[in-house]
Structures are given as C-alpha cells and as structure tokens.
C-alpha cells in the first residue's frame, strides 16, 4: 500500500466511508412512512441509545478532534476545563431541565420546531417572525464552518495525489507543499454536501439519526486509536504506560498548568455551553425521543463521552509542545492533528482519521440542514398557508426542497472562502446562549409575557451586534473580552456575560409591566399539579 500514489489510500478510504453513509441513508428510507412526522422527527421512535449517539454527534463538531488538540497545543491543558468539562455539566443540565420538559409539551401539542412552541406559549405571532431570521442567521455560519472544514481536511490528508491537476498555490504563486496535489476544497466540500444531502433527503430524520450513530462511533473509536498510535510513536518505548510517562514529563510547565489563562475568562466560559438549550437542530432531535425516559441515557453518558473524546486529544496537543517532536513554527494549530498523523502513522490511519474528522463534521451538518428545511416549511410556509391547506405529502416535499436550497446556498457561500467565518464559532454559540433565558422562562415562569420575551430577544441581539461590531473594529474577533472593573482590579469576562445579562434583565423587567398570556394559554403549559 505504501507504494501507491501518495494520497490515494486516504482518498479510497474517504470515498469508501462516504459510500457506506449513502447506503445507510438509502436503507433508512426503506422504513419511511411518507408522513411529515416520520420525515421530520422519525415518528418519535428513537430510543435511548440512538438518542444518545445522535445528540452527542450533533453537538460535537470537527472541533472535538481537530480543534481540541490545536487549542491545547496553543493554550495548554486548560482548554479541557474551559470547553469540555463545562459542557459535560451544562449540556446534560440543558437536556434535563429544557429537553425533557419541552419534549413533553411538544408531544402533547404536536410541535416540531422551537418557533411553533414559542408562538403558542406566548400567544404571539411576531415572536416567530423575530426568532426565525436570528436562529437561521446563527446556524448558517456554523454550517459554513463545517462545509469549509470538510474541504480543507480532505485536501490536507490527500496531498500528493495529483500535483498536475490539483496544484495548491499561495496568492503569490508559490506552491503550498503540505496541500499540493490534494483534492481541492471546492471538490471535497461538494462531495460531502452531496452525501449529506442524499441521506437527509431520502432518510429524513431517521436517516440522519442512523448516520449520526455510525459517525459518532467512527470518530470516537478513531480518536482513541490515533491517540494510542501517536503515543507509541512519540514515546519511543515498547510500553504504552512508559510512553505516557515520557510524554507527560516532556510537557512544558506553561502548557501543563493554566498559568497563562485568565481565571475570570475561564469561569465565564461556563455560560457558552448554555447555547445547547437554544440550538434549533438539537430541539428537533429532542422531539425524536420515544419517551421522556429515552433522555436518561444521553443525560448520564454525555459528560463521559465528552471525556473519552477530549482527554486524548488534549494530551496529544500538549505533547506536541514538548521536545519529543519538532513542529514547524508556521503550522496552524488546527492542522496539528493531521500533521502528526501524516508524520507519525501510515497512510491507512491517515485515511481513517480523515473519515473520523468528516464523521464529526457531517454528524452536525445533517441535523442543521434538516432543521433549517423544517423551520422554513413549518414556521413560514405551513404557518402562513394554514395547516389544513398543506398535506403531509406537500410538507415532506417542501422540507426536501428547502433542504436542497440550503445545501446549495451554503456550498456556494463556501466557495467565496470566507476564512473569517471560523472566528464566528464562539460568537454564534454566545448568541444562542444569550437566548437561553427566554426558553428557560417559557418553561418555568408563568409571568413571562410576549412583550417580555420579545424585549429579551431584542436585547440579546442588540448587545450581540454591539459587541460584535466592537470586536470587528478592533480586529479582535477571536480574543474579544469585556473588562469588568471591581475595586482597583479589572477582570476579563467573556462577551456572553453581557449578552445574557441584558437579555435576562430586559425579559424580566418588561414581563413584569406588560400583560401576561391568557389564562387558558397558561393552563395549557402549566397544568395544575
């Protein structure tokens, strides 16, 4: 196999993996019942195991494998506490406090999207029109990141395949050696978009759930295998444990501790995972659950799964800062894992790792495409045409058409190569977190009024826009923090604190002074115990 054209084994494995996904999606369509409920929420038939795998796969993007090792390489071991253990606590909290309750209400009232829930709960149509562009606008950069990352991963791991056809050059015409000959991003992204489109189009939510389950297993197993292989190569002894010790001792002090990390930034990062409570694609996955008890396994296992994926990746990232390997100083942190795999392992493992990274990317993309298609259909078309005027068959047709449209738009946007979109990740998450008080209050506070919710959404988006503008002006999109002066000290806090705080205050104050929803509406959402 090593005599083959460089990049070819990787390409064969990637194509094989994409073919398996297509088969899986098409097989799931054999069970399709032709109804709206079956296409959008798999007829609420998903049990605990599939729910766990699909929720975990949807929340973990390529960042879980590539970004975690890259960030650890840059910042040290503190990224695990900042991004992973915090998510382990908060994501499950959201599944428990928001997911289970919203599932019950939505099942009783037939909702599939968040907007259907908010419109009914607040007795207000405008809240839907307000939330729709915000939710779609916050998901689209997230989609773009996935589509663009898939093209980049395929290109870097198939480099050398065909330097004549796929020349990779810088704007000044010099060859980029690490990428030259690799499948170009426009082609790699197109392959991924088509595969996801096919299995979402034919399989709907069932196809998405099956594919997510397979993809979650693939990236978890491949992450662990990569960790062991890299440890054995870098450590240089026969024993895994001895190698771990050698590598542990090689980590420089500033990466083995958090001496360079702000404590207040670390603390306020805890608010970012609250975004999970308002992700529209996660809401739709919650609706697939067979019963409220189906949530038990995901609630328990989610923090463990995060640990299984993140701890090895963070260790690999900090090992790379030691003296056991030379990392080129120009290497981008996000390219660290592909670099180590290419340098230290075989083309076969590199091909499988590419499949693992693509699995992590696609397991989020599919849910997001399906969710946006569902929102366009249910919250705009069906809502304004009237439910009675749209048949199940038409609903499925509209959802599929919107999915094709959104895949096409995302792919075309990705061709403009808006690299700055990568810096938007944490801003999108912060935007969703800023909306968290609205969903929490809608479920647990009878006093929430429509005007209060609208004020909260407007305050969230106004504060988001203001801080985003400030960050753009100062060219600090990735590093922007708020300065919080207390006494003579000034502390760094994440911008999400300001966004969430303003949304919460506006929502509570306006709710207290404006009329509450009608008693019959409240009775529907807060039945007497």
């Amino acid at each position: 196999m090593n005599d083959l054209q460089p990049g070819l084994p990787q390409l064969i494995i990637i194509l094989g993996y994409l073919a398996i996904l297509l088969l899986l999606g098409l097989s799931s369509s054999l069970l399709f019942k032709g109804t709206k409920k079956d296409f959008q929420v798999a007829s609420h038939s998903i049990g605990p195991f599939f729910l766990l795998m699909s929720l975990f796969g949807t929340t973990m993007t390529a960042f879980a494998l590539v970004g975690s090792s890259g960030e650890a390489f840059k910042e040290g071991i503190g990224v695990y506490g900042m991004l992973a253990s915090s998510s382990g606590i908060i994501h499950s909290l959201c599944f428990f406090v928001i997911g289970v309750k919203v599932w019950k209400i939505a099942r009783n009232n037939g909702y599939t999207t968040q907007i259907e829930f908010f419109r009914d709960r607040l007795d207000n149509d405008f809240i839907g029109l307000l939330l729709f562009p915000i939710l779609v606008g916050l998901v689209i950069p997230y989609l773009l990141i996935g589509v663009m990352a898939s093209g980049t991963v395929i290109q870097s791991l198939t480099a050398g395949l065909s330097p004549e056809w796929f020349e990779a050059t810088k704007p000044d015409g010099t060859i980029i050696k690490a990428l030259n000959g690799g499948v170009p991003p426009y082609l790699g992204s197109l392959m991924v978009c088509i595969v996801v489109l096919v299995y979402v189009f034919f399989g709907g939510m069932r196809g998405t759930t099956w594919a997510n389950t397979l993809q979650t297993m693939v990236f978890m197993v491949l992450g662990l295998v990569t960790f062991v292989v890299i440890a054995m190569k870098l450590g240089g002894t026969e024993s895994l444990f001895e190698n771990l010790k050698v590598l542990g001792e090689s980590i420089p002090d500033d990466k083995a501790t958090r001496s360079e990390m702000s404590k207040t930034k670390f603390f306020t990062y805890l608010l970012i995972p609250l975004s999970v409570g308002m992700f529209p694609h996660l809401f739709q996955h919650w609706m697939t659950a067979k019963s409220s008890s189906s949530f038990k396994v995901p609630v328990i296992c989610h923090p463990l799964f995060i640990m299984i994926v993140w701890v090895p990746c963070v260790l690999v990232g900090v090992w790379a800062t030691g003296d056991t390997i030379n990392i080129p100083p120009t290497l981008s942190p996000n390219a660290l894992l592909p670099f180590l795999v290419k340098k230290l392992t075989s083309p076969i493992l590199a091909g499988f790792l590419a499949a693992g990274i693509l699995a992590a990317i696609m397991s989020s993309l599919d849910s997001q495409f399906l969710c946006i298609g569902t929102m366009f259909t249910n919250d705009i078309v069906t809502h304004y045409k009237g439910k009675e005027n749209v048949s199940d068959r038409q609903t499925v047709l509209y959802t599929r058409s919107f999915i094709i449209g959104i895949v096409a738009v995302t792919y075309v946007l990705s061709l403009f190569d808006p690299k700055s979109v990568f810096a938007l990740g944490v801003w999108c998450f912060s935007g969703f977190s800023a909306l968290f008080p609205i969903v929490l209050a809608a479920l647990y506070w009878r006093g929430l009024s429509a005007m209060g919710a609208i004020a909260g959404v407007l305050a969230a988006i106004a504060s988001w826009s203001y801080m985003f503008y400030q960050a753009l002006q100062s060219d600090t999109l990735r590093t922007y923090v708020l300065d919080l002066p207390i006494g003579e000290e000034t502390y760094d806090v994440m911008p999400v604190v300001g966004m969430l705080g303003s949304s919460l205050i506006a929502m509570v104050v306006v709710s207290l002074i404006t009329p509450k929803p009608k008693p019959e509406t409240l009775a529907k959402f807060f039945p007497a115990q």
Partner: protein
Amino acid sequence: MTGSSKAASKGVWIISGLVVLLLILHQDNWNWESDTLVFGFMPIGLFWHACISLGASLTWALATFIAWPFGDDGQAFQENNQQEAGK
C-alpha cells in the same frame, strides 16, 4: 403534595446542590499553577477536570433515580401514534 412528588421535589434540591458543587469544583484555582503529574503522566489540572466529567455523569445518573420529572410516558404516546396511523 403526594409522597412521590415530595420525594421528587427533595431529589431536585439534592441534584441542584450537587450541580452547584460541581460548578464550584470546576473553578479549581488551587490547581491553577500546579505541575504535578497524576499516575506519572497526566497533568493534575487535566486529571481534575476529567474527574469533574465523571462526577457530572454520576450526578446525572442519580438525577434519573431521584429527580426525574416524569414517569414512563412512552407507551401512552406510542398508542396515540398507532391510533393516529390507523385513522
């Protein structure tokens, strides 16, 4: 308030307390600058937070026993689904 809802309410308080405890332990300022390697290979800051992940998992496991808000409602909804499909 019935006996079972009283127990569930007590369970919610216990789980709330444990979550707050996890959030406090998450801000482990005492490990901030320690370069101790646990088992000879794992930086203590990483090991501590891996334990927080385990603690979170155990807390949520306990929540499913003592603070779960609903009984098993799947059967009722499945029957409802079948009735709808039969119409």
